[in-house]
């Protein structure tokens, strides 16, 4: 098997991207929208 870089080296570099914040934020907005939709129609 060809030599592979050790996994620890790869793990050390967590790079946070703006898109992660965006996806979490937008999904939070979905939940808020669902809440108001439910409030209006239940």
């Amino acid at each position: 098997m060809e030599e592979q870089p050790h996994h620890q080296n790869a793990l050390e570099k967590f790079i946070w991207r703006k898109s992660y914040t965006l996806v979490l934020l937008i999904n939070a907005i979905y939940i808020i929208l669902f809440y108001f939709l439910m409030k209006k129609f239940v």
Partner: protein
Amino acid sequence: MGIGLIDWGILVGTLIFIVAYGTYKSRGNKNVTDYLKGGNNAKWWTIGLSVMATQASAITFLSTPGQAFHDGMGFVQFYFGLPLAMVVICLVFIPLYHKLKVFTAYEYLESRFDLKTRTLTAIFFLIQRGLAAGITIFAPAIILSAVLKWNLIYLNIIIGLLVVIYTVSGGTKAVNITQKQQMAIIFGGLFIAFLIILNLLPLDVSFTNALEIAGANGKMEILDFSFDLENRYTVWTGLIGGTFLMLSYFGTDQSQVQRYLSGRSVKESQMGLIMNGLLKVPMQFFILLIGVMVFVFYQFNSSPLNFNPAATENVLQSEYAEEYQELQERKSELELDLKSVQTAYARSIDVSEKETLIRKIQDLNLAETELRTQSKTLIEQANPGAETNDKDYVFIHFILNNLPTGLIGLLLAVILSAAMSSTASELNALGSTTAIDLYKRNNEGRDERHYVRMSKWFTLLWGVIAILVACFANLFDNLIQLVNIIGSIFYGNILGVFLLAFFVKFVKGKAVFIGAIITQIIVAYVWWIDIMPYLWLNALGCILVMVIAILLQLSLGGKEEINPT
């Protein structure tokens, strides 16, 4: 019930086009990277669509609207953990898989632990996913055969063969290409169906009126913030349980991992999963909304007591036929009352009158639900062990009885496309895991063509196994549940092994391997003595393997060397 020539034309034409296009566009795979990773050329939207198409099986489109019809929109909460899982996978899993240039998720475990841990998890995956692939074919086939009177065995074989043709010949590239077409058909078909349903509502019932009617009958209770463990769908189970489930599915199941391993770069793979994280919740919401609109439609139109035609036929041929017919008559009377009250409600502009009418509607619907419950009791008495839950049959009943010619063919193409897209990813992953983790690892030094040829043979073999499982599935009661149980027995253990690999650095291969074996025995035993619902076996397996491996490693101390890689 049959379908017309135009519908047949659209259905057959769509399916043949997908198979032919996928086979043609993916010809000429020269090496293993081409065949198993699609040449590492996939762009982010291809990955995103492919990931979504893999998760959305035919049952998603048959069952989910039926779920909303009976229980409302609450099921959407099940997906709240998905975006969190996508972010964790983008942050941790994808960079690591790409950096190590792995073909399968299990290959990574050899570099982190050892060969035996890799082989063990690969075998666990093959057992559970091999059975699940058969059920992905069988589940829609049994419903379509019951409703359309098509031969179940032929339908299983046709769905399986169509998938086998392009998956074996074109590998991952063919799967990715066809899933784009399939998702276009799925989204297009569902959107048109939604518009048609709205159009079929009475003229004086606006979309807002429809939502009010649904809300008055408890169908718009989207969020449940309670901590009730009895309730399967709450915000908390979605956010906590859902995150773990999605993490194990998208992060360690090769049928999903293979989708984003085909990305041309780490960023493209990450963007593909972010796309899934953005679209999944609204997509499920939309499918559930279709189900709710079908519910509103049946407030103004007649519906059967039970949507499963086989169950109804059974009871009508039994000694309970008279009682059942009586229930049907009572339901017809209720429907007439309901229709007139609903129409009055839609026309009313007076707030207090509306409130009075809403209460009447609620009472009538409660009475209808009671009739449906009584009908289920009769169905069970007529045929003990019969499936009384008809949620899988609600949407297909609506499609076949109310949609115009042409659109029926399109919607059937949606359902079969969904079945094919999920099955293709499963066969692709099963073939890859067998070829890379079991065959190539133990037969090194052959040329690329040999491994491509073997990958094709393994994919074909799994295709045949999946078709056989689908064909024999009908012989067993509750086979779908059995497959889910088998999945739950293995899934938690596999996730635990991966979590140890990523986050618990001091644990080494020997401890994990022994821990995984002990965990598997304990989980199987716990299932056998039946002391907890089987879905909890996932959590049990995950926690057990982590605790046992950590304790073993602590007791082994420094005796075990770091795995040389």
